[in-house]
């Protein structure tokens, strides 16, 4: 419970905007888990099952509360469209990867990344939360979200692209 509850809230937040609603969703998911425990066949991992219930509960929680901030997102995406028509860098990346790794524990960077994740389109936010924040495998994520491996990869790629761009702004203002 201690291990999964915060993750469940985070996952719910990819669908609902307010923390209060996300907490309700996570709590409701536990109720669902307990009720369904008899029918849990152990075919998927307990974790995958938990997360799938969270996604379903978040969807059925009714109002789609989440408001995206598309302007911000588009702007970030454009920053990555740095290739000429024949596919070479027009604006090569400035070098900052090492600096980020050095500052890995800086709370401001971590916070910024989590903020950007909440601004991503829902599916991208779910994939990147499960893959990169929670560390699940691509197979697990496909099962939880009911999507194909290819689709999962496209969503992950877009999400990481946007987060990378946001980190760049943070490190090289």
């Amino acid at each position, binding site marked *: *419970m*201690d291990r999964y*509850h*915060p993750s469940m809230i985070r996952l719910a937040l990819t669908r609902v905007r307010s923390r209060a609603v996300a*907490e309700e969703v996570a*709590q409701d998911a*536990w*109720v669902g888990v*307990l*009720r369904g425990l008899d029918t849990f066949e152990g075919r998927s991992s307990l974790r995958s099952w938990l997360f799938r219930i969270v996604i379903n509960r978040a969807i059925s929680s009714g109002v789609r509360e989440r408001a995206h901030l598309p302007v911000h997102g588009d702007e970030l995406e454009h920053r990555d469209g740095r*290739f000429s028509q*024949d*596919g*070479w*860098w027009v604006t*090569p*990346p400035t*070098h*900052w*990867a*090492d600096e*980020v*790794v050095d500052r*890995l*524990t800086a*709370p401001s*960077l*971590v*916070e910024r*990344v*989590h903020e950007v*994740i909440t601004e991503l389109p829902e599916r991208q936010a779910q994939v*990147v939360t499960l893959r*990169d*924040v929670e*560390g699940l495998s*691509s197979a697990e994520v496909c099962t939880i979200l009911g999507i194909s*491996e290819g689709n999962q*990869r496209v969503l*992950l*790629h877009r999400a*990481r692209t946007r*987060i*990378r761009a946001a*980190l*760049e702004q943070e490190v090289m203002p």
Partner: protein
Amino acid sequence: MKIRRSWGRRGGGHEMTCQQAVNHITAYLDGALAGRDRDKLERHLEECPHCWEHLKQIEATIRVAGAGPGDDLDPLAREDLLEIYRRWRADQRPVD
């Protein structure tokens, strides 16, 4: 991996454009890029410092995303969850 040459449109690493290389990064990191594409990408990365930096930035991005937050369960939330559990346990008990 060492960068052997300065970046330019030459050498075997440029069978693949930078844009293609960047597009393959996610599959590559997942170990899902096979055969010729994988070879081409690896050659490209060896020769192109920009795409190499891009790869390192994506890896850094993944690490930051996974770096936190080390959130603890708020005591009130824990109490609520325990209450749900207790009620469930009570319902489970066979009626005498």
